[in-house]
């Protein structure tokens, strides 16, 4: 009478496991806007690297007869105060703005994760010490810290990255600490401990996978805001060297001529906006894919 019918466990393909990389990719692919953003960023980055070969004018070629040239067929975006082609500069400069965003976020994330995990995992005195330091760092707006650090470090591409990386690190550290604390106290960790898992195994199999998805979301959104802050820094004159065709720096010098030659202001700004928007769109899609709260 007792007839046990074994159900064939259906093969679950990898792209159906929520939170896995193929799953996130599958979700992003269904979002048209996110895909447009991704394609925009990738295309721009490629163009940026090959721009010395594809652009008619070099980004640094000065030609005084083209000074302030308005957009035309020869110079689609016009020329700046030294007669340099703005299109070439914008394309060449893309890699600066993007890589400052990506690398400074990477720096913040790495440093934040290490500090946050140490604080969360060890607790006690170490935790207290780290958290009080972060309190100090977070007791004034991040952009001001970035400005101050850039003043100390001086201008330069890698210095901007370090300054911004330090300035925005506390948020990552706090987030990491909070998720470590939540995970550490959860019942499945207790279960794992009860099954005699080693600390290393617990960290590797349980803590990291569970802490990582909020981190990815934060990084995805962080790149966009870091890019924005980086361009503000350059605009104020604290970022990369003034001769670098970074978009914020270009706007900074264009500002003087805004009344008569607004084209110098408009194009770099549009590119900042479009790039940050693209990062935001991709970040949004990643968040929606990873955040179970927003799903039905």
């Amino acid at each position: 009478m007792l007839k046990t019918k074994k159900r064939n466990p259906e093969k679950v393909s990898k792209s159906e496991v929520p939170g896995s990389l193929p799953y996130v990719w599958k979700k992003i692919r269904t979002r048209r806007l996110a895909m447009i953003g991704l394609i925009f960023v990738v295309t721009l980055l490629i163009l940026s690297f090959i721009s010395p070969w594809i652009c008619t004018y070099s980004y640094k070629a000065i030609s005084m007869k083209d000074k302030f040239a308005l957009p035309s067929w020869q110079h689609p975006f016009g020329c700046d105060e030294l007669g340099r082609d703005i299109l070439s500069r914008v394309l060449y400069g893309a890699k600066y703005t993007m890589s400052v965003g990506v690398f400074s976020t990477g720096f913040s994330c790495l440093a934040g994760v290490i500090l946050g995990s140490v604080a969360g995992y060890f607790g006690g005195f170490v935790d207290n010490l780290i958290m009080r330091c972060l309190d100090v760092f977070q007791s004034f707006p991040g952009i001001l810290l970035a400005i101050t650090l850039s003043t100390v470090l001086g201008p330069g591409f890698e210095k901007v990255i370090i300054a911004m990386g330090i300035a925005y690190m506390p948020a990552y550290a706090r987030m990491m600490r909070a998720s470590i604390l939540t995970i550490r106290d959860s019942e499945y960790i207790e279960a794992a401990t009860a099954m005699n898992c080693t600390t290393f195994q617990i960290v590797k199999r349980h803590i990291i996978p569970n802490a990582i998805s909020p981190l990815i979301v934060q990084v995805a959104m962080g790149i966009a805001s870091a890019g924005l802050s980086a361009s503000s820094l350059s605009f104020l004159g604290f970022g990369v060297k003034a001769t670098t065709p970074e978009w914020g720096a270009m706007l900074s010098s264009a500002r003087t001529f805004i009344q008569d030659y607004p084209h110098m202001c408009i194009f770099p700004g549009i590119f900042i906006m479009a790039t940050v928007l693209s990062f935001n769109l991709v970040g949004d899609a990643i968040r929606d894919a990873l955040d179970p709260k927003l799903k039905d």
Partner: protein
Amino acid sequence: MKNETTNNELLLSVQDLEVDYSSGGSTVCAVNGVSFDLHQGESLGLVGETGAGKTTIAKSIMQILPDHATKRVAGEIFFKNQDLMQMKEKELQNIRGSQISMVFQDPMTALNPVMTVGEQIAEGIRHHQHLDKAHAKQAAIKMLETVGISRDRIDEYPHQFSGGMKQRVVIAIALACNPELLIADEPTTALDVTIQAQVLDLIKELRRQKGTSLILITHDLGVVADTCDKVAVVYAGEIVEIGSLEEVFDHPSHPYTKGLFGAIPDMYKDVARLSPIDGLPPNPTELPEGCYFADRCPHATEECRARHCQLEHITGTHYVRCLKTEQEG
């Protein structure tokens, strides 16, 4: 004794209710053609597993299905001969809370955390009985005492109450305006066993005093036996067996109902082990063509898998949705 009540006026009649949700691009058929009647003063138990669509049936009657996820609602729900499905939102608001009200499953989340319990009870009273603030508060205090909570807790917030106390507050909110129909969605599931009994007794007592009709949603057959006159067994969004308490409990006819009874311990029989129902309910995004229970049914035949059958009358008020009874009948 219990059958007397059936002579009363028809209070609620649900006809061919169907509800689809949309979830991540696919359609979830939560309720698939549910029909039942409820007379004044009767109590009906809706029994079934988690995810069988019981809560959706309740929310459809209240007309508070979540807007963002609900894809399609069809069928008719007559309350005192008026179709709730065709009613305007304004008219529905006059019925909700005053004539039909609902007790939700989880008292921990069913109360607004930033409002005092007094305000939450008084809110419905003020709205339906058009009382001013002070009088509504008086009524709320009375209601609070009715469910056995002392009056000086009226200005406290939900987080200051224990689970069982919160469920009392939820019941107080539901019964504040003397509704004619109370829908209790698993009112005891989230509570301790001792508290469960208290809450059930409270509902029974209030029902006895006020003659409220009741739809009790539960997966606990014991609770049904204790509280209800009629039973409807819900599986995969449809009723597979419905009848009076005696009919269903004494002659369970659907294999699923039999399975449910097989899965509870019986004091008078000496069984070595309980027999659970194997397998899982069908995926509500892709329901099978034939009988939804066929995959788990020990008696399933090819015909079962091919054809979906209707509720068939057996005796009295007892109906069953199974090919076997259809053929025997």
